[in-house]
């Protein structure tokens, strides 16, 4: 008879996963830490490849101290965790994660898994958005941070949220030309949240500085902009938008776009964690409590992979979820430390909510996209095709009929805007059309792998 599995698996080595692993090691455990990337830090604190020389301040700006601290914490865990970089967890069944690493299939049997799966950009498709030269905001930032490249010579930044202003500033500071910052959120919407945002303290001041930066450096800024089309022949030559009641064309050869982030919830979904519609973030999100526990025994969630809250909150949640694991295994607890984490997590709630309200997802823009707009870029399904098939009151049925969300990205990109288009076509609330169900493999793997 084999011994019962006692492994703790941590999926993701970003801010949440690193702090989770740190607590587990402190409790005398040796977790398996998986990350799809070749190095740790997650996307926000992603480390450039070996041989790159820019200092932390150049790579991470005002959060350089946090990046340095997180990397140091992770480096201190090496040898004390079973760290498996470049390892994709592509399926989760009760007690088992299926992995792919360097072309080899593997599995990790676990007693507890803390899913710290992070996030990706949330977008609004618009005519021309599949052209070469258009990337997500996160993509534009990764190009600069980990490859030393700008996505174009004259880059337009479009969307809303802190990342919009941050990446535009980082590009300008790195020597790129910023054609303009086009924020779809009107200034008044942001200003209304200012009193609540004050609770963010230093983060609020950093945000104000980011938003002032382009104006102070002569970069064009439009708030309350409505994007109409990204134009070009082979690539991008302009961005047509409406602002101040008039239509304009901005000359640019690249566009970075994003409207906040959305959690990577696929593994939580496969684990059977129930989802609830979140009215503020306007997404279906996996259910978990403030201690990181889900209704599924042995499954814990932390960080942006569960609900977007940013790196600082992710670190706190990662540590807190790990203490839940420690408690559920009957190991000794550091109660003052847990109380400190609980207070720190609770203290962020007001600020994070105000931030969500200050930079809302422009759902009407998504709902009203022109019929000819490619909505699903994997399968080239247009908004018009979805509207024409809108009889079913369910996004999964619409997927079966139109192939929306059936492509290689599994609806990661088109899911939320697709739900807005469908709900508007049906005249119902977006919460009512449901969400695209998670399917394994959560990312494409060779057929031979799935057969094993």
């Amino acid at each position, binding site marked *: 008879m084999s011994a019962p599995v006692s492994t703790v698996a941590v999926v993701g080595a970003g801010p949440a996963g690193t702090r989770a692993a740190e607590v587990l090691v402190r409790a005398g455990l040796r977790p398996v830490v998986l990350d*799809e*990337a*070749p190095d740790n830090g997650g*996307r926000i604190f992603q480390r*450039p*490849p*070996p*041989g*790159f*020389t*820019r200092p932390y301040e*150049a790579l991470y700006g005002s959060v350089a101290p946090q990046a340095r601290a997180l990397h140091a914490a992770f480096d201190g865990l090496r040898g004390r965790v079973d760290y498996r970089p470049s390892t994709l967890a592509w399926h989760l069944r009760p007690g088992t994660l299926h992995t792919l690493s360097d*072309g080899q299939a593997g599995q990790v049997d676990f007693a507890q898994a803390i899913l710290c799966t992070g996030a*990706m*950009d949330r977008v609004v498709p618009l005519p021309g958005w*599949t*052209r*070469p*030269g*258009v*990337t*997500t905001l*996160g*993509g*534009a930032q*990764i*190009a*600069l941070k980990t*490859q*030393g*490249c*700008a*996505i*174009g*010579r004259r880059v337009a930044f479009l969307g809303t949220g802190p990342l919009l202003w941050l990446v535009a500033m980082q590009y300008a500071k*790195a*020597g*790129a030309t910023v054609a303009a910052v086009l924020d779809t959120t009107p200034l008044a919407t942001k200003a209304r949240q200012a009193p609540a945002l004050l609770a963010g303290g230093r983060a609020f001041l950093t945000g104000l500085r980011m938003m002032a930066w382009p104006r102070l450096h002569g970069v064009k800024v439009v708030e309350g902009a409505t994007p109409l089309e990204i134009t070009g022949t*082979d*690539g*991008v030559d302009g961005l047509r938008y409406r602002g101040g009641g008039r239509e304009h064309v901005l000359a640019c*050869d*690249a566009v970075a776009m994003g409207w906040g982030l959305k959690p*990577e919830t696929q593994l939580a979904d496969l684990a059977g964690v129930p989802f609830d519609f979140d009215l503020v973030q306007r997404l279906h999100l996996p259910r978990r409590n403030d201690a990181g526990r889900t209704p599924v025994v042995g499954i814990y969630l932390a960080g942006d992979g569960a609900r977007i809250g940013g790196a600082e909150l992710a670190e706190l949640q990662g540590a807190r979820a790990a203490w839940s694991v420690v408690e559920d295994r009957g190991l000794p607890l550091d109660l003052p430390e847990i109380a400190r984490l609980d207070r720190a997590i609770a203290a962020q709630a007001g600020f994070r909510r105000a931030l969500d309200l200050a930079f809302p997802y422009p759902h009407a823009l998504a709902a009203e996209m022109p019929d000819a707009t*490619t909505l699903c*870029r*994997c*399968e*080239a399904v247009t908004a018009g095709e979805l509207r024409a098939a809108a009889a079913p009151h369910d996004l999964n049925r619409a997927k079966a009929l139109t192939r929306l969300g059936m*492509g*290689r*990205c599994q609806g*990661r*990109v088109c899911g939320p805007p697709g739900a807005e288009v469908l709900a508007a076509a049906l005249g119902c609330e977006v919460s009512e059309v449901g969400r695209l169900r998670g399917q394994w493999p959560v*990312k*494409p793997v*060779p057929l031979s792998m799935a057969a094993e």
Partner: protein
Amino acid sequence: MTLVRLAETARARVAFTLDGAPAEALEGDTLLTAILANGTHVRTSEFGDGARAGFCWMGACQDCGVWVVGLGRQRACATPVRAGMEVVRL
């Protein structure tokens, strides 16, 4: 799409082939960077709606798939370039 190298340009050169033609990248480049340093697109949509050059740069959108001889289909943004790699745009 014109990728512009703004920093980290002192790295060693790496020779690979792109659609059979010799091409050059820098050590530490992903295939996405390597390809866009040599051309304007990464793949062509199989549905006839034009060229693509990736989108998310973080392994999620799957819109930068290329064929690497010996490795099969790879996401260009998540695959480091290596000397002698034979990369084919799909």
